[in-house]
């Protein structure tokens, strides 16, 4: 569907500032960044770089509208329109997440009693894909990520860290959304599975997905990132962030 050389801007962040005010700790103010701007195009992977505490994960959460901002706009291309997540109503944000914006966090938020297969199929079901097809695609994704078949009908609560992460990656990539946010998607994976996730990222880029990621693994970052965004440059001067 997407043309070969698609250079549409998929994410346009402008003038972003974020401060945490901790009311329960004497009103301490932690300024994370000020006046941050960035663009990501279709088919492009942008890696966030910077030391621990530079605000990489905070920026990822802001891009997902999980955290709020003090100032600035976060526009994403949603169904052909640029939608500002910073000022959108909750139901608009949820709709953007359903159709456009996927997030693979480091940890799987486990819901009691839900089988792995359903966890992975859920984003597809939310897009209106029928149960059989959603399950087929979920199976294919789990197999590809080497999640043993005997685990598919179990809830992932008791899985190992690496298994949970692969379930999380499978869930994040299953729906082939146009924008993906990846927070350390290979952190607890072995070499084979790391390779597998890199393959998924390449395929997503090839179909035109815009990706923003945090990759501590240098090898992974060098292989998948087209650009690196250095968070040190926007690190706010004030505040006690290390």
């Amino acid at each position, binding site marked *: 569907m997407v043309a070969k050389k698609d250079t549409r801007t998929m994410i346009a962040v402008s003038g972003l500032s974020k401060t*945490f005010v901790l009311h329960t700790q004497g009103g301490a103010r932690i300024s994370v960044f000020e006046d941050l701007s960035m663009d990501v195009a279709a088919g492009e992977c942008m890696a966030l770089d910077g030391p621990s505490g530079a605000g990489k994960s905070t920026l990822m959460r802001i891009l997902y509208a999980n955290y709020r901002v003090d100032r600035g706009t976060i526009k994403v291309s949603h169904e052909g329109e640029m939608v500002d997540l910073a000022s959108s109503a909750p139901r608009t944000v949820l709709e953007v997440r359903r159709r456009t914006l996927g997030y693979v966090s480091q940890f799987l938020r486990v819901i009691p009693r839900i089988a792995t297969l359903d966890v992975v199929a859920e984003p597809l079901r939310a897009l209106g894909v029928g149960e059989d097809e959603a399950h087929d695609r979920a199976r294919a994704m789990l197999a590809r990520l080497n999640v043993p078949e005997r685990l598919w009908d179990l809830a992932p609560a008791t899985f190992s860290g690496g298994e949970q992460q692969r379930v999380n990656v499978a869930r994040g990539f299953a729906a082939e959304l146009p924008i993906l946010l990846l927070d350390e998607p290979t952190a607890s994976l072995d070499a084979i599975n790391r390779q597998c996730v890199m393959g998924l990222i390449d395929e997503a880029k090839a179909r035109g997905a815009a990706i923003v990621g945090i990759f501590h693994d240098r090898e992974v970052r060098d292989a998948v990132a087209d650009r690196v965004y250095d968070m040190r440059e926007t690190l706010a001067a004030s505040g006690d962030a290390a």
Partner: protein
Amino acid sequence: MSDDDVLLHVEHVSKYFGQIRACDDVSFDLWPGEVLGIVGESGSGKTTLLNCLAARLVPDSGLISYTNRHGEVSDIFAMSEPERRMLARTDWGFVHQNPRDGLRLDITAGGNIGERLMMVGERHYGNIRHEAETWMNRVELELGRIDSPPRTFSGGMQQRLQIARNLVSGPRLVFMDEPTGGLDVSVQARLLDLLRELVRELQVAVVIVTHDLAVARLLSDRLMVMRHGAVVESGLTDQVLDDPQHAYSQLLVSSILQV
């Protein structure tokens, strides 16, 4: 699609009990299929607000209007009593914290489900029986118990039956007051799971009052945090829980014990 029609419009609603402001100038809009969680500690006014929204309590000031299936908007307190009762039976549901408040304990489980259908005009016994069986199944109650009265059920079973009774008539808006409140943790997890599935499948709008933030996260799209009768913060559920702005919301979130 009538997706752009607000289902429930709430404007400057206040309710006093003597000098106490139980509900202080609350305004919001609810859209079809949206799940709104109301959180806050005991005495914050969340149940009072819920009762006003569901027309079980008349607010001292403010407006609450509802858009029906035909797109007609009406002030719920300007309706006649029979109209309001009809609305509560057809378009709305109310799930009480204590299932005994929402069930008829001496008629059979099947009767409890069927009664709701009869209220909306179903007369064919076979159809009613069939629907009751379907719903016993959907809420994971044994079919063999369909002719038993709910006073012989456990609390968790009663709560599932109350949910079936409310959803069988295909409501568009369901009010829930601490629906998992009095249940054991394991029973709670099962019920939550069931509610989550049903809400998504039926695309029903829900206003759910809970003091349990984990329940709120699992079920609701949006949250309102109440304190002393007023809404101190509202927004997308994960935003409010992961990046709370108001001092009181921060206190609520940071007070959760980690297991």
